């Protein structure tokens, strides 16, 4: 209170002064101002000067004294502190997991995880692993990996910068770039870390990312790490995306200076792992140029699957790959190795070599896994017919699964990983999962290996409904697919009634 009064007084003083000097200025010109002020000083009564002096001192005091004490409220004695420390009881590090938690006990695979797979001791046909092209079982790939092992050993013992770059890494990057017909490619040692590192390499705090609601978990984590402003649009809904872009455009017009430094990105998946459908890429590219937004495309499910030569969703739609700013995919599905890669123009990709966290700070990919990926690429290039075979099988499986009683098939005919959803949910996720698990178990007993699609219920931004995943690979024969569809139908009839 006191402070305001004093300040007010002082302000008044100055105002009066200024008015007086203003009139002088106008009357007599600049040089008279000083003389006038000195004169005024002499003419002023002593009490005025004393008062003013006190006020000035007071202001100085106010300026240099703290207005409030920061530590005031925590003025605890040592003893009180000790008591607080004594009393504090933390939560346990982790809550106890009930013994019957549905995802605590994993299915155990013995033997190679290939087309014929032994799950929990039962030999089955694999309808669960993302081994789309069957390259996991390829003798050529195995032998190439073995010869690489004999040359380099297993581990790389260092990140790429510190003698962790092997000649095979460079070869693989070159081959991937050539395969995708882009300028450059960069490899990561873990599929999950690829897009999760790539997004924060470009998108920073304050930037805006437009993301499809069905985006996979690694995209979500990349967005979180980037600390950017995230706007979700409805799954594959271009009108909704355009609405958001327009909103942003209006926002930009309000503050064009700020708009000039905000980067914008659209992050989509080529073929959504959670929704099993394809993104409308041509429309996205149109929107990209209309609103000047860059497109990041995650192609883990579509690389080596879609398109005549397996180049993914750009080839599927005939979109110029240079229109996509960044494509990322993992090498763990179609290529059946480990790791991931990003490709695009050098201007974009090269930036990751110093800013991609998963690239700079992690040990590089074991050379034998890089060699395996190179050999897998060789096979894909030598025999492009394989993609046609896969696509036909996907269509076949999609058709065969239609009309399963009580189950809804989600996904486009070209998708190698379909979802089977309950037509009528019981209303509780746990019960739904139990029903679906019963179908999986029923199939396991009849030599069909299926799996539930697993999610972290609390962590997912938009939790997909519970589902069974059915994966199609080129190794599955017509009969096997029929058998699987038949088996699922039986199970559905029996379990869902």
């Amino acid at each position, binding site marked *: 209170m006191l402070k305001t009064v004093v300040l007010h007084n002082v302000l008044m003083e100055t105002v009066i002064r200024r008015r007086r000097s203003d009139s002088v200025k106008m009357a007599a010109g600049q040089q008279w101002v000083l003389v006038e002020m000195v004169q005024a000083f002499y003419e002023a009564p002593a009490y005025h000067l004393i008062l003013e002096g006190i006020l000035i001192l007071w202001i100085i005091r106010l300026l240099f004294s703290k207005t409030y004490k920061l530590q005031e409220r925590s003025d605890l004695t040592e003893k009180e502190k000790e008591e607080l420390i004594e009393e504090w009881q*933390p939560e346990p590090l982790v809550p106890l997991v009930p013994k019957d938690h549905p995802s605590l006990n*994993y299915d*155990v695979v013995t033997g190679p995880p290939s087309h014929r797979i032994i799950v929990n001791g039962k030999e089955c046909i694999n309808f669960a692993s993302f081994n789309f092209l069957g390259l996991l079982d390829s003798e050529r790939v195995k032998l190439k990996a073995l010869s690489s092992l004999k040359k380099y050993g*297993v*581990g790389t013992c260092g990140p790429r910068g510190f003698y962790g770059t092997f000649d095979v890494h460079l070869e693989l990057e070159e081959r991937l770039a050539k395969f995708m017909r882009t300028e450059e490619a960069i490899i990561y040692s873990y*599929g999950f870390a690829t897009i999760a590192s790539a997004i924060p390499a470009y998108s920073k705090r304050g930037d805006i990312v437009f993301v499809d609601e069905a985006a996979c978990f*690694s995209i979500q984590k990349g967005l979180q790490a980037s600390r950017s402003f995230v706007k979700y649009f409805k799954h594959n809904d271009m009108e909704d995306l355009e609405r958001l872009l327009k909103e942003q455009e209006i926002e930009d017009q309000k503050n064009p200076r700020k708009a000039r430094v905000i980067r914008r990105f659209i992050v989509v998946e080529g073929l959504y792992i959670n929704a099993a459908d394809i993104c409308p890429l041509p429309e996205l590219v149109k929107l990209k140029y209309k609103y000047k937004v860059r497109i990041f495309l995650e192609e883990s499910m579509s690389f080596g699957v879609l398109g005549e030569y397996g180049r993914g969703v750009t080839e599927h739609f005939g979109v110029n790959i240079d229109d996509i700013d960044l494509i990322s995919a993992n090498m763990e599905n179609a290529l059946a190795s*480990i790791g991931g890669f990003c490709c695009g123009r050098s201007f974009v990709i090269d930036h990751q070599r110093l800013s991609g*966290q998963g690239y700079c700070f992690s040990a590089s990919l074991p050379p034998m896994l890089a060699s395996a990926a190179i050999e897998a690429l060789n096979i894909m290039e030598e025999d492009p017919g394989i993609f046609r075979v896969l696509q036909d099988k996907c269509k076949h499986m999609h058709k065969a699964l239609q009309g399963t009683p009580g189950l809804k098939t989600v996904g486009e005919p070209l998708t190698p990983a379909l979802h089977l959803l309950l037509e009528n949910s019981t209303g509780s996720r746990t019960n739904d999962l139990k029903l679906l698990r019963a179908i999986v178990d029923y199939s396991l007993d009849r030599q069909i290996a299926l799996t539930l699609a697993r999610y*972290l219920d609390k962590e997912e931004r938009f939790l997909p409904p519970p589902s069974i995943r059915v994966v199609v690979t080129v190794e599955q024969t017509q009969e096997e697919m029929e058998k699987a569809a038949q088996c699922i139908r039986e199970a559905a009839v029996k379990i869902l009634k």
Partner: protein
Amino acid sequence: NTDLPGGWCKRPPLCCRCRPTHGDLSGLGESVSVVLMGIALQVCHAACNGELYSRPFIESFEETPMLLAVLTYMSYGILTIFGYLRDFMREWKIEKCHTAREREEQKDFVPLYQDFENFYTRNIYMRIRDSWNRPICSVPGATFDLVECSSNDYNWTFEYTGRVVKDVINLGSYNYLGFAENTGACATAAGEVTVKFGVGVASTRQEMGNLDRHEELEKLAASFLGVESAMVFGMGFATNSMNIPALVGKGCLILSDELNHASLVLGARLSSSTIRVFKHNNMQSLEKLLRDAIVHGQPRTHRPWKKILILMEGIYSMEGSIIRLPEVIALKKKYKAYLYLDEAHSIGALGLNGRGVVEYFGLDPKDVDVMMGTFTKSFSAAGGYVGGRKDLIDYLRTHSHSAIYATTMSLPVVEQILTSMKCIMGKDGTTIGLSRIQRLAENTVYFRRRLQEMGFIIYGNNDSPVVPMMLYMPAKLGAFGREMLKRNIGVVGVGFPATPIIESRARFCISAAHTKEMLDRALDVISEVGDLLHLKYSRHKVLPSLDRPFDETTYEENEE
């Protein structure tokens, strides 16, 4: 000195100027410290909490000489001025610009990255970048073969000449126990698995990618670490960044060492808990944060924290320092915090049986709540693990991001870890593992002592196989790498931003695979290059200790 209760007294700050006195070291290694450290070396030791340590804890961080600091700042100044000059010339097309350009169609987009962000890369890093990313074409063992490359445009592009530089001594790879091999038990076993299983798994742990081999590895890892249960993950970096968010969340506090690895920092950030940073390996700083956190609670609401998690590493790979684990455990117990220990560099490399930093200090693994580590280094494979109580691991099995969304570890890699771990544990019926651990400890002590005697400034703990040697100036960072490589020795340089701006350093990683001859050759060359580049900065005289034969080390002595 007794303002902190609980019998904890203030210790001098980390890089104190203090002499090792006989009493401090509990009488155990007094002769050691004198012989090893000479008389006036700056030593950081467990002054007051000496009784917590079962062995001498000798860590030195010699202060940067003032003149050098000034010169280093000046050299950055000169580089910056020239950088601006060249950027100016590039702008006016006087000098050719080598950086990749944006497409014409997208020129009017918001720039993908700010040009000034890359100033450092373009004008400083680019000039010495030939010291990094050198492709190798053999096993990264004690020696390796490098792909020869040259640049005609000052490192903007590299050309591979097609020749190979043979038999370069490898002081750069984290091959602590020398398991980077293409022959021998590990490679054979991994090879057999490759032929039988292939390399990929193409599914996640929770779906169809959980093989019995993985479970076997987890059991072995748990018994190796001395914990109830363990879980393995496909990538070391992701082990941190994908599991920390499963352990802590909103309303929890993370206390993180300022020099923690990027993966820990990322994991902490993804967990959306509050993060506070304490000074590197500084127990006073940690205790103050712990006290304040509990006394004041969460900011604004003052609700008590749900839990407090301390994140630390066993060996810090840039400093060569070892965590003050006995003190950290005492603090964590006193304040009921949890400890997450990242043993990426210490597992296999420390302790009599290679069990890491816990064994090194003779402590109980149960006192560390989360034991994390990687298989990349000592085991020469890939991936990481988390070990701890059964309820912790059960929780991770159901809630780890990695178990649900990431592809499982490749089987040949699993086999490499299984075989090398069995070897370290002596389960293969040989003493190869033990002798390697011993060899590494001997090599480490020998190499560090010799470098100190030569007058280099060496950072870190005497027992740490990561040996940072200070170079300070950015130009010397490049020159040192090149000169060493000319003499067929591969070293790693680290500069800004991985270190503080004036503390550029070379980093040697000692391996059990190094023979004494190799180390001696390397040391001779380092000395030669050190003279050439005037790198022998240390102002502390360390007397050569010729009376001590090579193989009789402190390591063995102290175990009695």
